[in-house]
């Protein structure tokens, strides 16, 4: 079915593509397109980070009955930009007795890992830079590189606090990576593919969270918890734990190097929300109901990237809500939660999901007229 989609960017993208094909040799066309995509992604990366920092500060202020930034621009909207400029021109303080190479390399691991993952996210119809057929494995793999940066930062800083923070982070990240991975695999079982674009496409009439009903919901909640834990944000912010470790693994960093950690942390929050959106909540797909063409048409008028950012934004809001409500966990409670509860539940969940898919107990199997693709 072809709906009228006036605000989509697919037309612009394909026009550009044709323009380069017509005027340049294939090699140069690919190169220029690649450069353009890279530029667009980097810009988007920075813009989202700035927006998130502003939004988080405003929402936090709302939770804590404060005002939040309100001086720069209307409602303080350009506060983040001012902060960015500040952090860009700040001096990078050189610490004595650090392992120089590792110390300066560490922030890049973190930021590169987050950027690589960022590239694979389908932001909207036709707006996906990397679309492997093993998309989910790619996302899991690249997002795990970040922990190397954190461990290196803690190790090379020559600071006892940093060291403790990094060790906590290592234990936490590796544990929760398991749960996050298994939760995503549950969905892979359900949708039968690892390619992110196909996963989105398969959720046209039934989002995975509905299609797999109870089991998918369990997987979704587990993914949100472990994803939240992977981003090192409260109540799982033990690696930083400003109350105990001053700032944990990035205590000794300053200026842009600290900025990298900071940026990556914010973007990771968004990336986790994006993956959850893509995998569980239908990605950029608008709400559609089989047979209701008029309704579907109206939904398609809202462009896909708005749908995507709306859903991801909702999950980010949830994450902020949790962060500002709960006190910090203790390392033993944190590991207990993962190894004694989340992981066993997850393992059972994935097996039951396999059975469910084989037996045809999903919603789209039961009501193909309503939810079938």
């Amino acid at each position, binding site marked *: 079915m072809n709906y009228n989609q006036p605000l989509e960017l697919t037309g612009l993208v394909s026009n550009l593509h044709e323009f380069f094909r017509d005027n340049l040799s294939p090699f140069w066309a690919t190169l220029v397109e690649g450069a353009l995509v890279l530029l667009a992604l980097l810009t988007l990366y920075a813009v989202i980070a700035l927006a998130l920092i502003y939004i988080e500060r405003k929402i936090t202020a709302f939770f804590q*009955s404060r005002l939040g930034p309100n001086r720069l621009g209307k409602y303080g909207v350009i506060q983040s930009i001012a902060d960015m400029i500040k952090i860009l021109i700040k001096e990078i303080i050189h610490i004595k007795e650090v392992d120089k190479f590792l110390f300066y390399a560490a922030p890049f691991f973190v930021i590169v890992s987050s950027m690589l993952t960022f590239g694979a996210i389908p932001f909207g119809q036709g707006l996906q830079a990397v679309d492997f057929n093993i998309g989910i494995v790619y996302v899991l793999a690249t997002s795990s590189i970040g922990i190397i940066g954190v461990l290196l930062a803690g190790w090379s800083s020559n600071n006892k606090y940093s060291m403790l923070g990094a060790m906590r982070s290592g234990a936490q990240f590796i544990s929760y990576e398991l749960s996050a991975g298994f939760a995503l695999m549950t969905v892979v079982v359900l949708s039968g593919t690892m390619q992110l674009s196909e996963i989105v496409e398969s959720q046209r009439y039934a989002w995975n969270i509905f299609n797999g009903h109870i089991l998918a919901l369990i997987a979704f909640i587990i993914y949100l918890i472990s994803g939240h834990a992977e981003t090192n944000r409260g109540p799982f912010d033990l690696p930083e734990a400003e109350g105990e470790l001053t700032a944990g693994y990035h205590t000794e960093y300053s200026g842009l190097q600290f900025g990298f950690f900071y940026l990556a942390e914010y973007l990771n929050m968004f990336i986790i929300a994006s993956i959850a959106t893509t995998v569980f909540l239908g990605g950029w797909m608008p709400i559609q109901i089989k047979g209701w063409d008029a309704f579907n048409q109206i939904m398609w008028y809202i462009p896909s990237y708005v749908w995507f950012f709306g859903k991801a934004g909702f999950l980010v809001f949830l994450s902020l809500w949790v962060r500002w409500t709960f*006190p910090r966990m203790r390392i033993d409670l944190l590991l207990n939660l993962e190894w004694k509860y989340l992981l066993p539940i997850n393992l059972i969940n994935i097996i039951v999901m396999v059975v469910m898919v084989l037996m045809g107990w999903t919603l789209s199997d039961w009501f193909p007229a309503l939810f079938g693709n």
Partner: protein
Amino acid sequence: MKDLILNIVPDAVIEEKEKLTVTVEPKQLHPLVKALYSNKELPFDYLISLIGMDWGDKLGVIYLLSSSKDMSREIAIITATEDRENPLLYSITDMYEAAHLNEREVYALLGIRFINNPDMRKFLLAEDWNGYPLRKDYNDDPKLNPITIANKEIVDIAPFIKEDEKGNLVEGTTDIFEEDDYVINIGPQHPSTHGVMHFRTALNGEVIKKIDVHSGYIHRGIEKMAESMTYPQILHLTDRLDYLSASNNRHALCMCVEKAAGIEVPERAQYIRVIMDELNRISSHLLAWAAHCNDLGGTTAFIYGVREREHVLDIFDKTCGGRLIVNYNVIGGVMNDIYPDFQKDVKAFIPYMREKLVEYDNFFTHNPITLNRMINVGNLSYEDAVSYAVTGPAGRGSGWSCDVRIHKPYSLYDKVKFKEIIRTEGDSYARYLNRLDEIEQALQIIEQLVDNIPEGEFKAKTKPIIRLPEGQFYQSVEAGKGEFAVFIESKGDKSPYRIKFRSPSFAAVSAMPIISEGELLTDFIGIGGSMDYVIPDIDR
């Protein structure tokens, strides 16, 4: 009681002053204290205060003892040595854990060393400080103790002097930490030490093995300063001890001076003072609650606590212009009358605060993470609470009925009805709940008083220069953190010969090593929050 003392030390000088005062020779001190400590009927197991003194010809210590069973029974024991070059007294650390840091403080300020104290480093002052400030012949020439910006290594070696079986004195040193301990510095610049506190912490993984307390980074020598000030001037310093209990502290000194000078305080002033004390207690407990939550990682709760505290501070602001350091009590009454809407504001605050207490309950108190982080964490047993002299909500969390307002009622506290909140668990959660419940009790006290403030003077007429008669005067109050006491020795002058403040935070910090041992580093911070100490109170 006298018979008991004379039985042990026949030549003791017993005087019936404000407190039963016993003067003994240094050699007889330890047996006497031991006898009092192990007295079956009424064990004197609570060391309120250990006051180092310089009487000019003699250097000595006044031990102020009381019983955990009946806090109204107090006894002062005085001992002194004439040796000014190498003054030695016997330590009582084998009975009272609280004596450890107190004796070290006396060593730093007066140079008296204690035999059998295992750790005789200076407390509050740097190890290389020249002279002993509280001695009357102290030379305060700044050239003797120049300010340096040189980096000083911390030496973890403690000297001691002890008596062997034959009665010979042996000097030696011990190492505080083992050789390959992983020692981290928590403080002096650390977000969660509630001030410039310094804990040298040996870790075993993330588990705390041993803590060594360093303090004195903001030691201002208030007791020394006070010796050259008149009494009304000293009042201003009391607010700067535990700044969260400014009213209560000042009330203690006012009462002590009034008692000594025989000044009658008008009824109206009494009412205003008690209401202000209780408001101050609420603000102190609110901040303690907020900071404790923040230490556990609940930033939002911190803001909530501070939000409610703001209402109390507004009332202070309108009453006397001060918010934190209120400077409101003066000798003979209060500085100025309450403002016309005072009662209305206070009465509006009471239901508001009750509503917020319910909100705290819903929001934080029953949160599963909170419970996990507090229940059975930082256990302080009843015996330890008494031995370390931990009073206030923390002491009452260990089952010790130690509310000065009940046992040694002052001002109007014998006229109002309120419950002493006691819990027996002794963990962080008990201390946490105690504070919230005490806010409610404080509200009830205010409720009983606010409508009945009598008309009349708000301040008694006093002489322009207040001189106290010769003698020793004591006064305790229940401050936000526990028993706060003032001791004044007067020689009939307009400024005290010696003034000593008993600080509840001092005791709370001295108990930190024992209750944190074996806990995780994360919990150490939370335990610190639950003990609720204020550093300027320690570094007087």
